[in-house]
């Protein structure tokens, strides 16, 4: 087993190490083995992206799917782009496709919250500062509450909530990753925030 944290990113280019573009060119010239270099360079990064969006048991499958899609779309990679950014967009869109399929097949479990979770939530939202929230601990409850709320959103809203509201990306950055227009992403961000707020208000009232 290898830990993601142990994987260090190599610099974009040094004297002996070929650049991403050179490797891409080798693959496009009919050498699929050169893709192993890309895999080694970016597997840590791809896992870091997908783990923010997916359950643990799906990480390897979706990370692999990301690299397969990248291989099949290598001819669309342009020299001027950053390979890391291009690969991140593929990873995010693969995660989005995963959620779309799951929502379409209605595979999202709609769990009920326990008394303990509700109690924790009530306590957490009445706190004033971020330091108080940190001190509150019990992140497991926060994670379960978040999963509970996200299960009630659409795949599109889920992605927007995670990228913009939780990860803190700008509208433009999220739009680039998802391949949507800035206006569409902005509207989605606004609506998803309202929906999420409504879900938590309902939880608190119950």
């Amino acid at each position: 087993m290898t830990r993601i944290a142990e994987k260090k990113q190599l610099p974009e280019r040094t004297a002996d190490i070929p650049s991403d573009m050179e490797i891409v060119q080798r693959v496009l010239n009919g050498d699929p083995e050169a893709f192993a270099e890309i895999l080694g360079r970016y597997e840590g990064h791809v896992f870091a992206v997908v783990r923010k969006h997916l359950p643990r048991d799906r990480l390897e499958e979706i990370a692999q799917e990301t690299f397969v899609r990248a291989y099949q779309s290598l001819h669309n990679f342009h020299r001027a782009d950053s390979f890391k950014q291009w690969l991140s967009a593929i990873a995010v869109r693969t995660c989005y496709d995963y959620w779309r399929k799951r929502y379409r097949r209605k595979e999202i479990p709609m769990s009920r919250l326990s008394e303990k979770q509700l109690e924790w939530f009530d306590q957490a939202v009445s706190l004033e500062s971020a330091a108080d929230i940190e001190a509150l601990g019990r992140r497991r409850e926060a994670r379960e509450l978040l999963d509970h709320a996200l299960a009630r959103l659409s795949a599109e809203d889920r992605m927007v909530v995670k990228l913009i509201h939780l990860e803190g990306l700008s509208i433009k950055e999220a739009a680039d990753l998802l391949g949507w227009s800035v206006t569409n992403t902005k509207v989605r961000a606004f609506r998803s925030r309202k929906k999420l707020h409504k879900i938590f208000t309902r939880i608190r009232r119950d």
Partner: protein
Amino acid sequence: MAGRLDWNILKKLFRITYREEEDIPISDLWGQQTMNRIRGLAPAPVRQGFASFFEPFVWRLAPVTLAMILILSIALSNFDMVGDAEVFRLFSYELEDAYAFLDLE
């Protein structure tokens, strides 16, 4: 009845969870399996020119184009082209007269 929820508190609450770094193990076989899948795929498609972008559309639209050519050929053979040209010439003269009349005013 609980009071109104503060969005900023909610955001802070879940951002803490979201940013929590977890040490997730990757199986050693994962890289090999991925490369095996890559090897099993067709060679990576090469960059295509601008003209080849339209290639699939050309074949898809070929039957429609053929049908249009046939219909237009039949329609043209049934039109009285000379007669239409004469009518057009008549109206174009009248149009010149109309402009001349407007210039007078």
